[in-house]
């Protein structure tokens, strides 16, 4: 099943780690909060995606089934 990255914005406190680990899919807005690319995650990035999800200090980054 294809997966999609989403941020739980209530948990995110803008550490910005995800954008450093996964610049291909995540940038930071001017307040330091992540902007995540839409759409399913490309398989080629699977490893980096998993790393970004597990390394978020507040576990705000989620890998969910793509709609």
């Amino acid at each position: 099943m294809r997966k999609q990255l989403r941020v739980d914005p209530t948990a995110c406190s803008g550490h910005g780690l995800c954008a450093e680990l996964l610049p291909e899919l995540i940038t930071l807005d001017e307040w330091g909060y992540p902007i995540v690319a839409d759409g399913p995650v490309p398989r080629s990035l699977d490893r980096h995606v998993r790393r970004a999800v597990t390394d978020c200090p507040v576990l705000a980054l989620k890998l969910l089934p793509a709609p």
Partner: protein
Amino acid sequence: MTYGTTVPHQARQAQTAGGDGDAGLPRLLPVHGAVPVDLRTHRQRFGDPPYSGQAGRLIPVLKAAGLTGRGGAAFPVHRKLAAVARAGTKPVVIGNGAEGEPASDKDKSLLWISPHLVLDGLQLAAEAVGSTAVGLYLHRNPRLQERLRAAMAERAAAGVDFAGVEIFDAPPRFLAGEESALASRVSGGLARPRFKPPMVFERGVVGRPTLVHNVETLAHLALIARFGPRWFRLAGTADEPGSMLCTLHQADGRRDVVETELGTPLRSLLTLDGHVQAVLSGGYHGAWLPAADAARMTLSNGHLEPAGAFVGAGALVALPADRCGIAEAARVARYLALESAGQCGPCFNGLPRIAAAMYEIASPRPDPRAVTDMIHWAGLVEGRGACHHPDGSVRFIRSALHVFRDEITLHGQGRCVDPDRRPFLPLPRDVALSAADWS
């Protein structure tokens, strides 16, 4: 608070609502005047709630009727019920009477005038999903809560209920009625929205599958259980059947709750003459329309959505020609910023900046960068909240920038249609500011 009906012959008897081609409006409100309906009068008019004797039976009936949620989102009612019924273990059912929208009175009016129709709907919905954990979520309005408690005592004495009902307090906040905020509050937490998934129908109150329906939706449900889908569809359009309650704000300052059919021309609800410049549809998460466009539309998402607006919970405002739409939008933008739950970075950071820029544009000879900034921030907050507060706020702001663009030009010349800036749109006097106000 007053209420009326757009149907000229108010004295039509509700007993004819059996399905002889008569849409039978008003359906939710008493036939004569604004008299609070007690249980005896209610039973004379409608009889007892028609329990089906089995969970699930009502769901295909609601599907055939095409009832959608009247709290604003217009989600198909049968789908929510089916999802909760399917989720199985010990579901919870909550009637949502938290009407945080300052421009809407219809839920308070309905609860005050026809409490038993709402309570019937709550009971029938509980039976339909097989729940005996039932609640009613209401603002801390002592008079209204007292009336509901009295109505519930009447019902207990008469033995008409399927399950006992507990009342839960909603804080006086714009977002208190958002489903996940409700679930959190009823679970004993703060009334703040949370990230989805899981959806509330999967994991809501204390982690149990939870059915949340607006109180007006429940009242329609109670009537569909009695009179059937064909009767329900005698009002409204094929795509958007039935009637709904609307809160109408006329340009002369009158404010009424009326029951009207979906598909009613907006010009028969609001006086839209040369004294009106714009119409706000869908409340403060809704959108402005130029009065001339609104005059050609009907109360239906089919008409309103292509124009960027929606029916929402039926709050409609006619803005007089001699008021400043930008000053109005700035006041509402500040209110919406203060009503952010402050949990999501983009909403917490973006909405106050948008409001400040709107105040800049509302001032004489504003900094021309304010509009560009606002459009930029609107793009940054949209779609990035746990709830729809940023999206709804942005919809309101963008439509104001578009519809009142001539006013913005006027401000650039140091002029304004209303230099006195008399407030027109209703806002609460005291905006709650402390965290405790979410409980």
